[in-house]
C-alpha cells in the first residue's frame, strides 16, 4: 500500500513525539521516580513505534520498540533510571531524529540499524530478566528482514493451505459436524493478505462479509477477536457452512477483496475431522510447530511476487518531502470563515443598493457607510489571515534545554536554562529560521559567557550559571533576549584583538565607545574564543547570527557588563508579508519605507547641510547624520534644483542614523510585500514592490542597504 500521502503527517507527528520524549526524559533525569513522566515516555515511544511500523520504517520501529520495552521495565520497577540510561535514551532520540531526517529528505528511513544503541537498551532488559523478573517477551527482531530471508525456493512450493493444519477444539468440531449432518457443505478456507496491507482486520472483515453471502462461518482461526485486533500474520482461516456447491465461487468472492493475494480452500468432511489431527495430546505436540510453519511460509511466498514489484517504488521517489505547513487552530479558521461571510454580505448589500435606487446609484452617504463597513471587514480579515500564519516560537526553542544539558556535560560547567514566553507567536517563516541564530547565541553564552564553577565560586556567584531566554511581544515586534550571568564581554580584550587583526588601529581603538567595541564582535571572522572549540568559535560566529537575523528583517543588540554578564536582544518583525510603511515621493515616483526603521522626519534648510569627507551631513540636535539623496541613488530624472527646505526622513539601523532626502511625504499605509520576479536585476536598495489602492505600484526601499 502506498503510504506516501501520510508522510507529511508522519513527519509532523514524529517531530512532536520526539519533542515530547526529549522534554520528558529531561524531566526524568531530574526526578527519576516520577511515574507520570515514565508513563508519558512509554506512551510517546509506543506511538512512535506504531507510526513507524505503519509507515514501514522497520529500523525505526525496532529502535522505538526496544525503548518501549525498557520503559515497560521501568514502569514495573525492574529497571532503575540512572544517568547512563538517560544518556543512552538521548542517543536514541538523536538516532530517531536521524531516521526522521532521512525520511524528510528521501522518503526513506536510511540504512543505519543503530545496533549498538539497541544492544545497550537490550542490556537493560537482560539485566531486568536476570534480576529474577518474570520471563520477558524478547524484543521482536526486525520482522521484515527475517521473514524475507526465510523465503526460499522450497517455501514457494509449499502451497498447502493453512486451514488443513489447524487444531480444532471439540466444540468447533461439533459445530462442523452439525452443519455436515444438516446436509450443508463445509469448506475450510485460508486467505492470504498482501504483506503491504495496513488494515488487515478490515480486509478480513470484508472477506467474511463476502463469503457470508454464501453461508455461515462456523469456525474462525485465529479467533474472531484476534482477527479484529489484527493479532495475526498475513493469513487467516475459517470454516464456512454453506449450501453452495461450487467452491470457486466462494473463493472468487473472497479474492475480489482488495489486498487479498490468494484464497485457498477445500471441502471438509467427517474424515478430515477424525483424521486425528490435534485429537490426541501427543500428536498435538508434533503438529504444533507445523501449524505455524506452512502458514508463515505460504504467506510470504504469495506476497513475494507483489513485494518484488513494490520494492522499486520507494527508490524511485527519493525527493524531499518536508512540507511547509502550518497547523491552524480551528477557532482561527472559524473566525476567518465568519469574516469572509461578512465580506459577502457587504458585497451583496452594495449590489442591492446600486440596483434599488432606480438608476440614481448610491448616495454619497450610503457609499461612505458601505466603504467604512468594507474597510472594517478587510482589516479584521487581514488580521485573521496573519494570525493563521503565526505559530508559537515554542516549536523552535523547546529543543534548547536538551542542548544546554549536553553543553553542560561537554564543557563541564554547571548551568541551567530558564525560558519564558515560549508561547509568543511569530510568522511561521521567521520561527523556522530563528532557530539557528538563537542556538548560536545560547552556545555563545554557555561557552564564552559563563565562567567555570571555580571562578564563579571565587567571584561569589552561585556555582550554577544561569542562561535566560525571554521572549515577548512589543508593539509590532517580537523581542527575544538571550542573557547570562557570566563574565560579560571584556572590551579591552576585544580591542586588543581588533588591533591585532588589523580591524582598527590603536589610535582608533582609543576613541571608540564601549558600544562600538562590542559591535565589532559582529564583524565577519571576529571570533573571541581563545581556544577554538566545537561549540562556538570557528570564526563563523556572531556575524552570521547578525546577517541571519537581518535577513528576517530584524536586528540584534548587545549589552554587557564585565563580570556581571551580557544580554543579546533580538528584535523581529511580527510578520514578513505585510508591513506598516511610510509612502514617500521622489520626483513623481512613489516609494515605501518600512515604518519600523523610521526615526523621525525633519525639515532641513539647504544651508544646514555640511560636508564631512566630501559627504553631505547634517547636524541634528548634536548628532551628525549623513544625508543620502534618493533621487541620485534611484537615478531619477530630471535633475531638480534644491528647494530651500528639504524633507529628510531619518532612518535607523541599529544605532546608525541616515537621512533620506525625499520630495514629499505620502501617508502611512499598510502594504503587502510582493516580489519583483527573477528576470529583472535591480539595486539591492529595492526589496520588493507593493500594489497601491489605485492599482499602481510602489517600490519598497530597504534602508538597511544604505548603511
Amino acid at each position, binding site marked *: 500500500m502506498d503510504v506516501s500521502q501520510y508522510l507529511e503527517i508522519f513527519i509532523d507527528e514524529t517531530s512532536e513525539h520526539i519533542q515530547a520524549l526529549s522534554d520528558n526524559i529531561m524531566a526524568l533525569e531530574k526526578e527519576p521516580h516520577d511515574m507520570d513522566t515514565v508513563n508519558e515516555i512509554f506512551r510517546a515511544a509506543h506511538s512512535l513505534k506504531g507510526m513507524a511500523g505503519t509507515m514501514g520504517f522497520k529500523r525505526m520501529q525496532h529502535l522505538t520498540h526496544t525503548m518501549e520495552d525498557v520503559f515497560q521495565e521501568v514502569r514495573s520497577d525492574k529497571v532503575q533510571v540512572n544517568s547512563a540510561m538517560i544518556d543512552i535514551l538521548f542517543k536514541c532520540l538523536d538516532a530517531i531524529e536521524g531516521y526522521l531526517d532521512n525520511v524528510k529528505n528521501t522518503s526513506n528511513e536510511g540504512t543505519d540499524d543503530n545496533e549498538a544503541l539497541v544492544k545497550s537498551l537490550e542490556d537493560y532488559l537482560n539485566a531486568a530478566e536476570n534480576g529474577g523478573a518474570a520471563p520477558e517477551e524478547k524484543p521482536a527482531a526486525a520482522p521484515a528482514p527475517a521473514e524475507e530471508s526465510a523465503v526460499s525456493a522450497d517455501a514457494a512450493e509449499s502451497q498447502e493451505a493453512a486451514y488443513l493444519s489447524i487444531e480444532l477444539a471439540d466444540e468447533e468440531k461439533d459445530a462442523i459436524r452439525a452443519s455436515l449432518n444438516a446436509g450443508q457443505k463445509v469448506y475450510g478456507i485460508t486467505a492470504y493478505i498482501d504483506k503491504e496491507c495496513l488494515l488487515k482486520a478490515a480486509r478480513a472483515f470484508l472477506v467474511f462479509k463476502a463469503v457470508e453471502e454464501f453461508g455461515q462461518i462456523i469456525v474462525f482461526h485465529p479467533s474472531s477477536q484476534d482477527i479484529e485486533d489484527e493479532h495475526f500474520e498475513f493469513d487467516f482461516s475459517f470454516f464456512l457452512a454453506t449450501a453452495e456447491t461450487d467452491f470457486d465461487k466462494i473463493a472468487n468472492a473472497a479474492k475480489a477483496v482488495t489486498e487479498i493475494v490468494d484464497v485457498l480452500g477445500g471441502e471438509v468432511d467427517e474424515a478430515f475431522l477424525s483424521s486425528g489431527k490435534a485429537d490426541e495430546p501427543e500428536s498435538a505436540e508434533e503438529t504444533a510447530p507445523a501449524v505455524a510453519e506452512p502458514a508463515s511460509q505460504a504467506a510470504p511466498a504469495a506476497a513475494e511476487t507483489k513485494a518484488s514489484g513494490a520494492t522499486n517504488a520507494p527508490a524511485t521517489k527519493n525527493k524531499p518531502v518536508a512540507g511547509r505547513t502550518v497547523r491552524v487552530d480551528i477557532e482561527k479558521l472559524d473566525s476567518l470563515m465568519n469574516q469572509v461571510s461578512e465580506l459577502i454580505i457587504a458585497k451583496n448589500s452594495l449590489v442591492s443598493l446600486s440596483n434599488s435606487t432606480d438608476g440614481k446609484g448610491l448616495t454619497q452617504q450610503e457609499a461612505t457607510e458601505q466603504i467604512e463597513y468594507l474597510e472594517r471587514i478587510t482589516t479584521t480579515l487581514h488580521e485573521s489571515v496573519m494570525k493563521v500564519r503565526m505559530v508559537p516560537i515554542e516549536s523552535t526553542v523547546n529543543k534548547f534545554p536538551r542542548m544546554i544539558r549536553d553543553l553542560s556535560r561537554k564543557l563541564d560547567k554547571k548551568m541551567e536554562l530558564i525560558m519564558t514566553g515560549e508561547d509568543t507567536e511569530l510568522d511561521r517563516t521567521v520561527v523556522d529560521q530563528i532557530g539557528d541564530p538563537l542556538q548560536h547565541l545560547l552556545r555563545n553564552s554557555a561557552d564564552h559567557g559563563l565562567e567555570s564553577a571555580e571562578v564563579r565560586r571565587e567571584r561569589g556567584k552561585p556555582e550554577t550559571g544561569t542562561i535566560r531566554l525571554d521572549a515577548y511581544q512589543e508593539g509590532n515586534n517580537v523581542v527575544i533576549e538571550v542573557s547570562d550571568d557570566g563574565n560579560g564581554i571584556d572590551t579591552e580584550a576585544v580591542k586588543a584583538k581588533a588591533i591585532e587583526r588589523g580591524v582598527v588601529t590603536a589610535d582608533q581603538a582609543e576613541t571608540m565607545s564601549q558600544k562600538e567595541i562590542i559591535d565589532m564582535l559582529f564583524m565577519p571572522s571576529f571570533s573571541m574564543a581563545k581556544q577554538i572549540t566545537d561549540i562556538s568559535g570557528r570564526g563563523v560566529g556572531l556575524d552570521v547570527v547578525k546577517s541571519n537575523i537581518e535577513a528576517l528583517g530584524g536586528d540584534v543588540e548587545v549589552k554587557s557588563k564585565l563580570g556581571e554578564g551580557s544580554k543579546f536582544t533580538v528584535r523581529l518583525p511580527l510578520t514578513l508579508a505585510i508591513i506598516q510603511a511610510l509612502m514617500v515621493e521622489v520626483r513623481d*515616483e512613489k516609494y515605501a519605507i518600512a515604518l519600523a526603521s523610521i526615526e523621525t522626519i525633519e525639515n532641513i534648510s539647504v544651508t544646514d547641510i555640511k560636508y564631512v569627507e566630501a559627504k553631505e551631513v547634517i547636524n541634528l540636535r548634536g548628532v551628525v547624520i549623513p544625508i543620502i539623496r534618493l533621487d541620485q*541613488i*534611484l*537615478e*531619477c530624472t530630471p535633475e531638480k534644483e534644491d528647494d530651500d527646505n528639504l524633507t529628510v526622513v531619518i532612518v535607523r539601523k541599529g544605532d546608525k542614523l541616515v537621512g533620506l532626502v525625499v520630495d514629499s511625504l505620502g501617508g502611512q499605509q499598510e502594504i503587502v510585500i*510582493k*516580489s*519583483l*520576479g*527573477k*528576470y*529583472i*536585476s*535591480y*539595486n539591492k*536598495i*529595492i526589496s520588493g*514592490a507593493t*500594489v497601491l489602492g489605485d*492599482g*499602481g*505600484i*510602489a*517600490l519598497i526601499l530597504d534602508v538597511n542597504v544604505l548603511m
Partner: protein
Amino acid sequence: MTELEMNEDTAMQYIVVKIGSEQYGINIASVDNIIRMQKITRVPTAQFYFKGVLNLRGVIVPVMSIHQRMELEESEITDKSRVVILRIEENGLLGIIVDEVSEVVTLTRNEIDPPNRDSRSTKDSFINGIGKNGGRLISLFDITTIVDQEETA
C-alpha cells in the same frame, strides 16, 4: 519543445505581433495573456531594456521593451500597443511590449524554415525559425533565449 523537434505534420499556433516593421510569431503555448498598455512603474538600476513592472491583477510582472532587447529603435506607444504576458516555466511571468497584435496563425512543420544564421545582429539570436504563412514571412521567437541571455546579463 522547440519547433525543430516537431513532427512533419504537427501544427503549432502562433500569435503574430508587429515589432517595428516586421511580423513576429510567439508560440501560443508560452502566452499567458495579452493586455493593453497600462502604467508601468520604473525600477531604478534595472537592465536598460526593462521598462519596469506592472500590476496584473495583484501580481507584479516585469515588463521588457522587446525593441530595446533586440536593439531596434524604440517605437511610440500607440493605441495598438499591447503587452504580451509570457509564462515561462518556473520563473513566472514576463511582459513584452509589442506594437500590435494582429492574429493567430497555425503553422505546420513544413511551413517553418530554419532561421538564417549568417546575420550576427542581436535581433536574429532570438529567432529560431521562419514561418511561411501565405505570402508572408513570420520570424518565430525563441522565448527561452530572451530570458536565458537576460539571466547571464
